[in-house]
């Protein structure tokens, strides 16, 4: 497990940097500015640093989410079975998957500790509508971890539809698990599993809050 997991795990820890202010046209400028905005806030927010997940989620919802295309992400994660879902189910899947990702990775933001994020030059042709923005998280004593954002341009705005951490797509990594759920319980089974997972996480978070 060694080699693999580790890195990208740690990664998760700083995945989400994005923000709303960015109206730049270029996708790399967008990712960069959102990243910088979010990290600037995290660096100053003692609550988030001390593990206040709710605060982190708020920050992510406000700054990051507007730049993500969750319908696209969900489609990618569900894969072939997406076509079996009716529009209502698709909406439900998207909502639950979004909740799961937001909760999980907002939490990761709380373990941010002054890592430095470097962006690599983005290769892009003028007419491109699908671009990968590559970045690297550097921290003392650990190897840099790559975080690549895939963005697609739709109706004039660039939206992120995949995040690949140390070579692992946080989206398509769900594909096998989702396919298994669908095989066992149909689309509704998958929706239920996701709802249950989210409810468990919520309950756990609430518990943690009380203990404080």
């Amino acid at each position, binding site marked *: *497990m*060694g*080699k*693999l*997991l*580790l*890195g*990208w*795990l*740690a*990664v*998760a*820890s700083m995945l989400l940097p994005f923000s709303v202010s960015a109206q730049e046209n270029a996708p790399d400028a967008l990712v960069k500015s959102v990243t910088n905005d979010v990290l600037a806030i995290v660096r100053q927010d003692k609550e988030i640093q001390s593990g206040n997940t709710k605060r982190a989620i708020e920050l992510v919802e406000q700054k990051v989410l507007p730049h993500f295309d969750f319908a696209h992400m969900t*489609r*990618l994660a569900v*894969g*072939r*079975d*997406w*076509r079996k879902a009716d529009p209502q189910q698709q909406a439900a899947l998207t909502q639950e998957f979004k909740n*799961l*990702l937001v*909760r*999980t*990775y907002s*939490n*990761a933001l709380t*373990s941010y500790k002054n890592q430095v994020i470097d962006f*690599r030059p983005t290769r892009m042709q003028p007419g491109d509508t699908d671009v990968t923005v*590559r970045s690297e998280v550097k921290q*003392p*004593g*650990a*190897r*840099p*971890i*790559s975080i690549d954002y895939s963005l697609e341009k739709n109706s004039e705005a660039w939206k992120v539809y995949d995040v*690949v951490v*140390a*070579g*692992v*797509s*946080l989206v*398509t*990594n*769900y*594909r*096998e*698990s*989702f*396919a*298994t*759920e669908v*095989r066992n319980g149909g689309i509704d089974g998958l929706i239920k*599993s*996701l709802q249950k*997972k989210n409810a468990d*996480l919520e309950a756990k978070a609430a518990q943690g809050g009380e203990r404080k």
Partner: protein
Amino acid sequence: MGLRTARTRSNDVRISSRKDGEVNDAAEPASRSWRLTVSVLAATVVFSTGCATTGSPQDPLEGFNRAMFSFNEGLDKVAIKPLAQGYDFVVPLPGKTMVSNFFGNLQDPWIAANNLLQGKPGQALTDAGRFLINSTVGILGAFDVASELGIEKHEEDFGQTVARWGVGAGAYLVLPFFGPRTFRDALTLIVDGYGDPVYYLVDDVPTRNILYGTRLVSNRASVLPADKTIDEAALDKYAYLRDAYLQRRRNLIFDGRPPRETDEDAATDPGGSLARELTAPDAVSPPVLVASDGAAVAPGTERQRLSEPGFNDSVPSRVTSPVDTADAAPVAAATGSGAE
């Protein structure tokens, strides 16, 4: 090797001896003896562990693997993780950094050798340069001066080398102590064990074991923060970590730039590229390319890159060395609890 901090480098230098600069991980030479091994293992092991399975095409030994996963998770929980937490708590950050740099530096010669074997002499040279600089100016590797100078660290091992030579991954396999592998990577692990300076430079066995142990704990400590994220993110931790491992290996083999999967692939290809890697037919001659659904596609299409075979008849059968020398440090990067 065991637990290692994963990391990715996007290497801009690619193998150039190949047509399109991509090397394929899809060829599946699977010799007879391999197949035999697989079926014997499957027969003896899968039936004895009656776990629910996900039916993933790249994981025919899921029952066995889940059992091993649980074992590793248990080991991690009672021994490795607590040690790593203690280490993390007691040792100040600069100390931890030095330890991790020290072991990282020791990897560079073997990384250089593997880059050479993969036809990337330029990278091999920078790896060697890193080792020289860090071993001297960096005081036996305690300081990663080379990275400060902008000399990029790479991640290579013999499994990746053999993959670039065209050997397919084989089935996913969870090894006790060592954690996730594929059949290919489980076999090449032995070679990596011999390529590890801790093994060949340190003759005193107790000292060597201390080094292995320290490395294990240091590596585990570096990923402690990830435990929670994984627990939260995964519907089924076993499957989540399996798929992450397979994705990451593929990414490493292609030096951070694996062939891109399209939305169409996503919509039609449940196993994704990983399944493709495993299901590639034994003998595809170079011009005949096989798409994910098994249909031949015309050369020149996007999918071409996915299944260009390399030289199929290489390596694994030659690997006969005893396992125990491979890597004394038990890995079990295992985190959390699995096996539903």
